[in-house]
């Protein structure tokens, strides 16, 4: 046997440490640290620049071949529209809408554009049991109507109330939502129709990491103009569409209570239990069965033993 001296011990120890470090790094890079397509595109929406002209709504309607609206796009009475005490939302006829807010802090209204925020880790995607959603490397969350069953779990899961269902159709219903103009524009590196249509440059398109920098720059360079927060930088794990505002976000219709982590994180507690139940339950319950029915067997054995004993005793007595 080779003798282990001090030198070889140190050598081996160092080699092992190095190997462990390398392997560990490799492993951590492979799981958990998925960087959500770092080259993905994004848009920053500056609420202070939007004038509520609804050009983006019109452009979206045309680009996505949506039905002609009941109220034309130059009619601003839609800003007063209320349904169940709620302002307008996306539905099967509109992938994007603009709502007006009158925050008491300032003397003029603010307008907020609503569309799919194209989350880094979308709740619609992670909740879908037929894989109808895809997050593309370009940053869009797209939807495949060909496999959709119409269960509407994505609508329950979406923290921003974006996906809408085509309830009016009996034979071809589907989810209706903004797809970042993926098919017609984003795929080719072009900005979506709404961004191109905006006359106020309220929407800035670029790589997500770049537009995020632009947003931070604006906050830094014009002190007092914006609240020091970019909605969408961290909300539900980060979104491709982000917002700048001059008033607190809850005053202009944003849900500021959405979790900072991706929605799927709150489901993981359950998902982690599934393999445990699948593997432990069978053995456990068959074991219970054996234990529960053991009594009958023990009783039988005891009876046999007793019989044997009495027999032996009888024999002994006979011998005596």
């Amino acid at each position: 046997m080779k003798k282990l001296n001090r030198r070889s011990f140190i050598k081996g120890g160092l080699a092992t440490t190095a190997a462990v470090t390398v392997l560990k790094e490799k492993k951590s890079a492979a799981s958990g640290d998925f960087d959500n397509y770092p080259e993905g595109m994004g848009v920053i929406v500056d609420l202070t620049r939007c004038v509520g002209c609804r050009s983006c709504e019109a452009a979206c309607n045309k680009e996505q071949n949506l039905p002609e609206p009941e109220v034309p796009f130059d009619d601003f009475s839609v800003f007063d529209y209320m349904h169940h005490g709620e302002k307008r939302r996306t539905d099967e006829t509109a992938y994007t809408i603009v709502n007006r807010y009158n925050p008491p802090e300032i003397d003029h209204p603010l307008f907020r554009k609503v569309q799919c925020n194209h989350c880094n880790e979308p709740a619609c995607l992670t909740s879908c049991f037929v894989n109808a959603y895809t997050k593309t490397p370009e940053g869009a969350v797209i939807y495949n109507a060909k496999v959709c069953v119409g269960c509407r779990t994505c609508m329950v899961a979406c923290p921003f109330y974006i996906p809408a269902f085509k309830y009016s159709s009996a034979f071809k219903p589907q989810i209706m939502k903004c797809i970042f103009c993926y098919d017609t524009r984003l795929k080719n590196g072009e900005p979506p129709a709404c961004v191109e249509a905006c006359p106020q440059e309220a929407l800035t398109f670029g790589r997500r990491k770049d537009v995020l920098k632009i947003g931070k720059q604006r906050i830094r360079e014009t002190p007092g103009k914006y609240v020091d927060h970019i909605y969408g930088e961290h909300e539900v794990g980060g979104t491709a569409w982000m917002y700048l505002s001059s008033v607190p976000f809850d005053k202009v219709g944003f849900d500021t209570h959405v979790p900072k982590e991706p929605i799927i994180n709150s489901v993981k507690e359950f998902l982690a239990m599934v393999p445990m139940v699948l593997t432990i339950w069978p053995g456990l319950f068959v074991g219970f069965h054996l234990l529960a029915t053991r009594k009958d067997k023990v009783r039988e054995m005891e009876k046999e033993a007793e019989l044997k004993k009495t027999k032996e005793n009888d024999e002994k007595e006979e011998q005596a």
Partner: protein
Amino acid sequence: MKLFSNERPEIPIAHHTKEDGSAWTIKEKLWLGLSVTEYKKQFFRNPVNWFMIMLFAIGIPLILGRYAFGLGWVTHASNDYPWGLFLGFGLFGMVPLSASGFMLGTTVELFGRKDFHSIERLALLNGLLGYFFAVVFLEIDLGMPWRLPYPMFVSLGPAAVLFLVAWHVATYLSVQIAEVLPAFFEWIGWLKGKRIIRRYVLGLTVAGIILSTLHQGALGALFTYAPAKIHPLWISSNFTWIHFFVSSIFGGLSMVIIASTLIKNFMGWRCDDEFKDNLDYVTIGMAKGASLAMITYLVIKLVAVAHDQEWTYLLTGWGSYYMLELGVAVVLPMFMFAFGVRNNWVTLIRVGAFIAAIGIIWNRLNTALVCFNWQMYQEIPHWKEVWITVTIYALYFLTYRFIVYRLPIVYEWKGEK
């Protein structure tokens, strides 16, 4: 049926052969051994059937309309409340009330409690029909019902909770069919089939426990996809799935107590003496189990409030509603069960079971509809949606009755077994 069973000794049918030694045909068995005129007579003198006819007269056209004109024709087509009564009641409410199959299957087959044998088949049937009709409700609600097998075979999303629900409900439905089949095989007289199933009964029971634990829990976990939409008291990412699972235990047991009570009172002619004589005993046994599940449930509910630091919510209006739900739907029937068990007061248990079952549905509707979007407006279902829901439930009732009338569920088959 009382009308005929008193006069004719061979009715109700419990044997392959008639009095004169000739065999009953399947057709005669289906007609309960009555002539068509006799069958009509007993059918129309039952007021329940008249109520059903009126219900279906409007319900069936509504269901056809749903398939012809879309979901928007029968619901409010809400994008804010994607799930209404069809799932809130039909799926989330029916499934926990159908946990009876695995509960009594486990009691009798796995733990060897043969003293619960007389209620086992009813519990299995209750489970099977509950699941089957939960799927029927799903088929009403799905946008594209013809794509039901897609998550199984066409496009798989195995990381989603609903994927697990779909697969487990489908497999468990097959397991439950296998568990109820022996009754059918006795009735048609094919004993080989019964023997085959008998061989796998332990495997089926264990499969039932695994599948039930996971998909009862998964129905709760589905709501953890909406942590910001549901009132914090009704959702907990750590505990909701355990709440749903544990409450299904007393939900399923309560439902069997209700079904057996109705059968004993309105279908006495069909029950045999073993069923009738044992019923009080097994009811007390089930109430004992249910009350234990209830106290467990209450403790985990409390743990969830403590773990998620939600004490302050209890002082709000929503908190009062939460306490009301727990008080009426769980604490009250729990004490009724406990008192009933202690004093052999079976009627109290039966009333308690009724409250507990309604309570489960109330809890599921709270999670899916009332406390969903709690910071938004409240969605009130469209009347057509309510009518269709009641119609499908009535169909469930009729199917249940149809089977209990015929198959050896609450009586023992007297022919060869």
